[in-house]
């Protein structure tokens, strides 16, 4: 079974402060990990995925297989980062199911 845990429902930070959204997963095979984001009144969209190893909007995430984690980080939070963030996991094969965590609402305040 595959499972994604996001322990924080709400994370409130000040503008300019570092951000870390936690994600832990459970999966017996080789996982594909993603972060999806839903801004207010917008559709859910991909933010980044671990196989791309890229930084999007200043966010990065490193897959740590030893700790089974894929935490999302940004050194300096911006107001426009306020949104709902979902960590998601899929198996590597075809017909794979994407399992989402419960989401963390990031609130960036002045």
């Amino acid at each position: 079974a595959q499972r994604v845990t996001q322990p924080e429902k709400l994370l409130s930070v000040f503008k300019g402060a570092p951000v870390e959204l936690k994600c832990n997963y459970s999966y017996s095979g080789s996982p594909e990990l993603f972060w999806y984001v839903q801004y207010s009144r917008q559709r859910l969209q991909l933010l980044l995925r671990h196989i791309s190893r890229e930084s999007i909007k200043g966010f990065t995430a490193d897959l740590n297989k030893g700790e089974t984690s894929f935490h999302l980080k940004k050194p300096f939070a911006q107001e426009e980062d306020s949104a709902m963030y979902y960590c998601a996991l899929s198996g590597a094969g075809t017909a794979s199911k994407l399992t989402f965590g419960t989401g963390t609402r990031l609130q960036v305040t002045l």
Partner: protein
Amino acid sequence: DTAVSQTPKYLVTQMGNDKSIKCEQNLGHDTMYWYKQDSKKFLKIMFSYNNKELIINETVPNRFSPKSPDKAHLNLHINSLELGDSAVYFCASSPTGGGTDTQYFGPGTRLTVL
């Protein structure tokens, strides 16, 4: 615009009614999905279709029946609606259905059952 679109955006109905939600994608993707997002914002897959063939069928009441007339469309029909069906339903598509795919989501349909 290339995108995933859903109709209607809002749906308010009485318990016991039957309703449908339509989804279309013009991205040329082979795979389409239905997700349910509950009041706590938890997002869970319901079904997926690859090229009109049912691939994923989660533990969903059989009052929910997906239909894919072609690979660009995946509709969701719900019979005998119950209060607990109130949620936001998202359609999504992806190129192949493989685990590395990015999924592209529709805007959601907010279903309220009274």
